[in-house]
């Protein structure tokens, strides 16, 4: 029946994932026993303060860090179940520029700062075999409009862009190939409030229209409230609470979530 979504297959499935950095003490786990499922078209926020392990978890999901324990399974567009940490590196790189996207906190880490804005957007398209220069450029222009960048600056280097513009360019660069899964690491932190609002609104609209699944790491409960269907709360490497976003924020059960919610000036 339509109310029952249990028949849906998760896009991403994580079981008993733990990670300890090589230089850490034996009992010092960055992520401990994390489990989560991400379903198609769903936005899930991971909230928690600095050092809670949320970015480490995200990097484990992206295949950038190999977790000490546990597995990450991704269901590819062709239906194949892939073990993210046990597939050939080449295959993971192909996924990373086709079906996946990753939006870095610092746009400079996610962009090629030495090439033009248009080339930044076109890169993934060309990686997928689009060779016709005019088509690539037209796509880049379309995407600059979608993310509200001045198309007149298509040939400019992102070095001359403001923080907010760079972040919008990074989003365009990621979404141009219509990925199925986008991971975002604090995409709005460090931006002015008005710039944040614009970016959040943009992410919200694009995600709804493209039915892309998103995992977004943020310390800002307002970002979770605005974007996420579900929210996970992390503390000391553990997921201490998870559920419907408004339930987690309005009726938090765990002592730490209550502290987080009570510490926000304007939720």
């Amino acid at each position, binding site marked *: *029946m339509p*109310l029952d979504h249990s028949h849906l297959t998760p896009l991403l499935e994580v079981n008993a994932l733990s990670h300890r950095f090589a230089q850490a003490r034996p009992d010092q786990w960055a992520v401990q026993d994390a489990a989560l499922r991400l379903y198609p078209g769903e936005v899930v926020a991971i909230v928690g303060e600095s050092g809670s392990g949320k970015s480490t978890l995200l990097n484990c999901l992206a295949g950038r860090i190999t977790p000490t324990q546990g597995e990450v399974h991704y269901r590819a567009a062709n239906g194949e179940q892939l073990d993210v940490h046990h597939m050939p590196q080449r295959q993971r790189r192909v996924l990373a520029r086709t079906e996946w996207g990753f939006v870095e906190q610092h746009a400079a880490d996610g962009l090629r700062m030495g090439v033009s804005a248009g080339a930044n957007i076109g890169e993934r398209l060309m990686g997928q075999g689009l060779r016709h220069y005019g088509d690539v450029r037209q796509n880049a222009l379309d995407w600059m409009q979608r993310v509200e960048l001045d198309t007149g600056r298509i040939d400019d280097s992102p070095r001359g862009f403001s923080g907010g513009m760079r972040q919008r360019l990074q989003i365009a660069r990621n979404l141009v190939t219509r990925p199925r899964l986008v991971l975002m690491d604090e995409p709005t932190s460090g931006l002015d409030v008005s710039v944040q609002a614009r970016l959040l609104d943009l992410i919200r609209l694009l995600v709804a229209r493209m039915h892309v699944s998103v995992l977004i790491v943020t310390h800002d409960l307002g970002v979770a409230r605005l974007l996420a269907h579900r929210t996970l709360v992390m503390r000391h490497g553990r997921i201490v609470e998870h559920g419907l976003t408004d*339930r987690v924020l*309005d*009726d938090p059960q765990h002592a730490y979530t209550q502290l987080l919610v009570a510490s926000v000036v304007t939720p």
Partner: protein
Amino acid sequence: MTMTTNLTNQAHPALVLDVQDVHKHFTLHLRDSRMLPVLQRVSLQVRAGECVALVGASGQGKSTLMKCLYGSYGVGGGRMLVHTPDGTLDMAAATPHQVLSLRRRDMAYVSQFLRAVPRVPAIDVVAERLLQADPRLSDVGATASDADWAEAAQAARARAAVLFTRLNLPSALWELPPATFSGGEQQRVNIARGFIQPARLLLLDEPTASLDARNRRVVIELIEEAKAAGTAVVGIFHDEEVRDAVASRCIPMPTIGHDSQCSTAPATLQAALQTETLTP
């Protein structure tokens, strides 16, 4: 979950909401895990076309019950069955996906305050509700093109405009984000959003609190139209004129003898927690 057949006829309108023995307490971990009971053994049934008004002094848990019904609050026990043509969902035990799915089409909630999304024009705040409910656009696996979206958005905005006109919202405001609107203007945006998509179950928390007489009458009409269309309504109306006009029945809160020892329900859990000094 079980499938049910909803037979809608005049004599026995279908049961839409069946709340059985619901209780709810807050545990304030920041205050020595103090337990704050807010709902005790609440039961109520609402049928299609009926409007049930929750009545009682502030702090008796009326808004809390609404938030439990909508899923924003969890409950400690009991059942909250919502019957829809597609089947029955127990909101007390529903998964996040089931709650969201019910909210998209079958359940609407008009709260006292609009949680404004930055930058989104008022008319889109309302039109968006229709777009989210549209299976061609928003169901998993939907493959609507940009042109489909544009067409649907245009139609949704036209319907939002009709509601705004009825609610006397000046057209100069339609394209502005509602964050800067007055309380009454924001409330009308909220009402339009709650009514634009016909719902099976409509939850109204003081929908007319900051409206003038003319607009209160419009809201009464909207509620009557929803009832006539078979919507089950649960409402909190402090305005007696509105309540007398729309309520089929009144349910006193608390529904059974309230423990006089127990403190009144806070407006929100956050309010209960905020009395604590801010901790970094």
